């Protein structure tokens, strides 16, 4: 039996983590192909609604990654992101979301190796949670999407 391959939506800021992913490419550091990246100018742009939307549409996990504290291209955007994220994480945990589904990291544009490590780690954590059934929009469970 082949193992469960999770679908993950990743939100990266343009200046740090997106750059790290670019550099991981240049350095040919391979990692699992399970996530799809939404590029944001800054993690500060991340509205918590995007995370909820991803889960609602069937994502098994979400990964948000930005600049290290103090390195934000926009001075403080990543601090706002962190506050929103922590609050949302607590809320989702309270209503039953496995903590491993929602991941946050700081990766600078020079940290290609760290990017590779975190990418593998996030995929494994989400894999361990199994398929997202509880947070998926109900219609999908009813099989209506196949009818439509």
């Amino acid at each position, binding site marked *: 039996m082949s193992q469960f391959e999770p679908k993950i939506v990743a939100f990266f800021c343009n200046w740090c983590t997106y750059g790290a992913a670019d550099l991981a490419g240049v350095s040919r*550091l391979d990692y699992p*192909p399970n996530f799809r990246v939404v*590029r*944001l*100018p*800054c993690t500060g742009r991340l509205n918590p609604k995007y995370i909820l939307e991803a889960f609602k549409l069937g994502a098994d996990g979400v990964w948000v990654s930005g600049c290290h504290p103090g390195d934000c291209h926009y001075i403080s955007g990543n601090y706002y992101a962190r506050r929103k994220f922590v609050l949302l994480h607590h809320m989702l945990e309270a209503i039953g979301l496995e903590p491993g589904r929602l991941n946050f990291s700081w990766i600078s544009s020079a940290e290609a190796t760290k990017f590779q490590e975190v990418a593998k780690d996030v995929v494994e954590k989400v894999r361990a949670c199994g398929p997202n059934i509880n947070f998926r929009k109900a219609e999908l469970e009813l099989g209506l999407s196949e009818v439509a």
Partner: protein
Amino acid sequence: MASNKVVGAVLVAGGGVAGMQAALDLANAGYYVYMVEKSMAIGGRMSQLDKTFPTNDCSMCIISPKLVEVGRHINIELLTLTDILDIQGQEGDFQVKVRRNPRYIDMSKCIACGECTKKCPVKVDNDYNESLDKRKAVYVQYAQAVPLKFGIDAQKCLMLTKGKCGSCQKVCPAKAVDYEQKAEEITLGVGAVILAPGFTPYKPKDFETYRYADNPNVMTALEFERLLGATGPSMGHVVRSSDHKEPESIAFLQCVGSRDVNRADNGYCSSVCCMYAIKEAIIAKEHAKYDLKVTVFYMDIRSFGKDFERYYEKAKEKGINFVRSRIHTVQPKQDGGVRLHYVTDHGQSATQDFDMAVLSHGLVITGETLDMSYKFGLKTDQYHFAQTTSFAPVALSRPGIYACGVYTGPKDIPSSVMEASAAAAAASSKLASARGTLTKVVNVPAPVDISGEPPRVGVFICHCGINIAGVIDVPKVVEFAKTLPFVEYASNTMFACSQDNQEQMVRLIKEKRLNRIVVSACSPRTHEPLFMETLAAAGLNKYLFEMANIRNHDSWVHAADPAEATRKAMDMTEMAVAKAALLVPLTENVIDVAPSALVIGGGVAGLNTALTLSDQGFKSVVVEKDAHLGGIANRIHSTAKNEVVADYLEQLKAKVEADQNISVVLGAEVEKVEGFVGNFETTLTTGEAVKHGVTIIATGAKESKPTEYLYGQNPKVVTHLEFDEKIKAKDEAVAAAGTFAFIQCVGSREPERMYCSKVCCTHTVHTAVHLKKNNPEARVFVLYRDMRTYAQKEDIYKEARDLGVIFIRYELESKPKVTAAGEVLNVLVHDPVSGRDILINPDYLVLAAAIVSGREHELAMKYKVPLDGDGWFFEAHQKLRPVDFATDGMFMAGICHYPKPMDEVVAQAQAAAARAVTVLTQPRMTVGGIVAEINQAKCSSCGVCVAVCPFSAIGIDPEKGKAVVNEAMCKGCGVCASSCRSDAPSLRGFTNAGLFAQIAAAL
């Protein structure tokens, strides 16, 4: 009688990275540029490199945007296959005679389809791949060449040499082949000339000892670089030439054709070989899927640039072996490998076997370049490099002719780029009155109004040679893209970024009336601006563009799983199309630019920047925190070229004082900063408010205070600068002293300060020579770890040895021990060669104390620019933008960037001015685009957006009582948009709708 005519054009000879930068800076500052290149395409040596140190950036990826920018610049006229015959006239008004050699292909007709190459029967050594493989007699220099036009090798073509064949003409669908083309001579009128002819790598074929000529597994480093390259003969796979087997071990032999007066006549150090050898060693190990053993045999490791020392340390951590020895014999082995014979550091003979050897060959000036120098009346040094001075590092001996790059001495890419900008500034310094007289105006078509049209998305999917197509099934992604909503057109392309493809994209946008474009290729971080310009050229608002990064984020990292990689590429393309369909045209606003600069720091760097800006007619305010100008240069006796610094400084200060365009504020610092590029307003601690369009940071650095070797406890122990002050003051005690010792790397190259201070080795040997010349009986000892007298400075090291200066090497683990016994100073050092401890009793112990940054955190925060971990100001790009900050309108010069000697400081100062001029010459500039906007109907005036905006760009409109964005100050982070509870702000280009569509498409 000299004419007073001033011509607003400059000729730049040489299309390498230096020539390209000089051309771009001039063209962007209002001068018309003739770029003369002798080969078929620009790009130079850098186009041959696989990676660049110390960031391992892909070389082609970072110059490709520059190639295209030069190729499409309206004020740069590219003359390929062109030689310079003669330069007549004088500064301001030269007549340059050039010969345009025939390409035998009509450039206006060639569509670069490659049919001619397929049919050509002649195979020739491929010089782009250093003759490791073959090309045809009709060919294109390299895949991303600019201009991307084929040409015929006249020496090899059967038709041109023997009058038979003609197959290329028969198959050419564009009827571009023309065997009748003739050379033509034309004369160009220009105000100045910049020469950037570059170098040729040293050819070790005469070195019988290295067996280069008869053993294919002994290669030069440039050949090895091509072997590592994805577009090289084995597509990046490291294999031996003789049997195509993967080598288990590789030896790098340093200083081949450099630091060698016995066999090569090249006494100088080539400056870059240590670093490129480390780079090639690291990359080779990364390419090998097994434990490749790499050993570097060296004399001194010269990792003296910014972040170089850490790169060297990293290489050691990765298991690369470094052996200090010069190989004297290379013996061929039966299995195709080599046996190296050498003498170890401790004087013992040793042998070691390797499967391959790479010769780190130096950079040399070609005979052709030397002839040119001679013909145009330009002085050269004994190694044929063009002569310059420390205080005018890009000016050649004939007024009006300037140089940049390796022509004046061996140097790396960032130094060449700095000099290129400096040459642009120097070359135009006498031409300011003719600025803008010969330039053409860019004619961007007014964007087509697409309002009301349904989205018609065009999708272009790039092969990137084999970078993408080698893993991803590109045709499958194209077919998939055609099925996506609103997609009107989808196709694949070999190199989406190449010039011909850009032109085709313009044609397709017009032809198919495409109104949104998606390119699935590489990273938007490097290539988005290029494609956005293409949209603009096609009459489409440039923000109607989206990229999918199917190379860096896909093919390069999922090579082991092509099926998943293809599926991911399809998803990524779908996400991009989903977002693109919802994009709307964005407008940009025009703001006025204050035509003046604020220069922070009144040292040699700051003053040169201000003077160079003044040459171009721009005013500047120089703010200096000390009570006097000159900075650290006030304490330095003389330069490595024996120029007296005090005399120079006096002239420099006098020039600044007499200059109407420069005002100096002494004893002041920056108090408060407001505004942005074009419109800064800086308040000084004196209360004075300065309005300026650009800011140049030139705050310098400091000599550290050593905490070892009895410094501060014994008056005989002094630092370099303290000793220089004694020499300057003609100190009698120094003149009478008989024994001197120098200790190098005091506080540099240690775990807590892992960088080389770059200038100390040269300053030590320079001072040692001075002491020996004044008193040949003096005993001078230099205790060092690696001598780093790079480039022609190696001559001073040699001179010091010839004069009898004793050099003793020490290891970091066994530093010299310094003790005092009454009046006597004891310096005990272990000499690894003799294996003995040596006791020196110097009258003066001079410490090469590390240069440390000012760690200007406050200043950096005020201007929103970054510092690196060592506190040096951090440039926008370490290779190609060494004087720019990532923040618009901000530049740096001098040792606040990194320690460097006088000539490099002056070059960087002139470069900073050149870069600043490209901003200041625009009376108005555009801002906006991706910025926030407020839907005032939704705004409840709660003020959350005002509070969270990191740039104070949002305020409450006092009349309407609603939030409003200052577009010139908004940087487009989107914090406001994600913080408002009513969704009133939105970030253009990254709207909720667009991002939701992307998320949906991802799943």
